[in-house]
């Protein structure tokens, strides 16, 4: 189904000032799809964290590089929900090297990847065919805010 065209496709420049707009779009969309307010907020947070990582790590804070958000709503399928891809044209890295810090070792940073994995049902990082990285995430409507569930393993 992710081979079909996305319902919504956003291309934005890698400037932190556009994070707010992206979050609000996700909130509006998830709300409309029937996600509860909590879950909507968490999905928006995951997208924000993913975009922030592309800006910080992928593009090393360059503010004029492209980022794509592709959204598939899977409303009429067995498992209604959302699929979201975040794509960049930054340098390619080993997907297994993308992980957060040990949560017990309290220090600034290292939380974004944890948040993404905690909030979404599935999370897979991969190298794109040509250049750049792709983060594939999904969240089913049925899966409540799964903050208490164990994290998902790498893709």
């Amino acid at each position, binding site marked *: 189904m992710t081979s079909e065209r996305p319902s919504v496709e956003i291309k934005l420049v890698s400037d932190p000032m556009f994070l*707010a707009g992206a*979050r609000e779009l996700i909130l509006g969309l998830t709300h409309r799809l029937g996600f509860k307010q909590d879950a909507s907020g968490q999905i928006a947070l995951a997208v*924000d*964290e993913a975009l922030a990582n592309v800006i910080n790590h992928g593009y090393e804070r360059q503010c004029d590089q492209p980022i794509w958000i592709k959204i598939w709503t899977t409303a009429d399928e067995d498992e209604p929900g959302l699929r979201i891809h975040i794509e960049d044209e930054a340098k390619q890295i080993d997907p297994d090297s993308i992980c957060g810090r040990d949560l017990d070792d309290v220090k600034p940073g290292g*939380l974004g990847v944890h948040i993404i994995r905690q909030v979404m049902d599935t999370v897979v990082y991969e190298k794109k065919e040509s250049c750049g990285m792709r983060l594939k995430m999904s969240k089913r409507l049925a899966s409540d805010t799964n903050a208490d569930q164990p994290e998902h393993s790498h893709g």
Partner: protein
Amino acid sequence: MADQADLEITWDSREGATILRPMGDVDLSRSPSLRNDIRKVFENPPEKVIVELSAVSYMDSSGVATLVEAMQLSRKSNAKLVLCCMTERVHSIFEIARLDQVFTISPDVDAALAE
């Protein structure tokens, strides 16, 4: 510049404590403002620093990282750091990051002053 890059942050002083009150979303674009103000507070560290978060409707991990840095600064200067008035949405990111037990979090400013 039209871009409102700076977070509005008010400063207040009460019973020996400095109270910072950021207003708005604390995300990657705005957490540098908060970091600046926090560093400024710890240039002359008071006994207690309270970060009053009632007007922060959204925070991402860059905001949390800034507050973890504040905690480290407070330990270095033997000051007490208390967060208060968190909205539910902001509290949930502290839970996800398992930091809700690491920070001192009070329901309101009075409770924060009493900590």
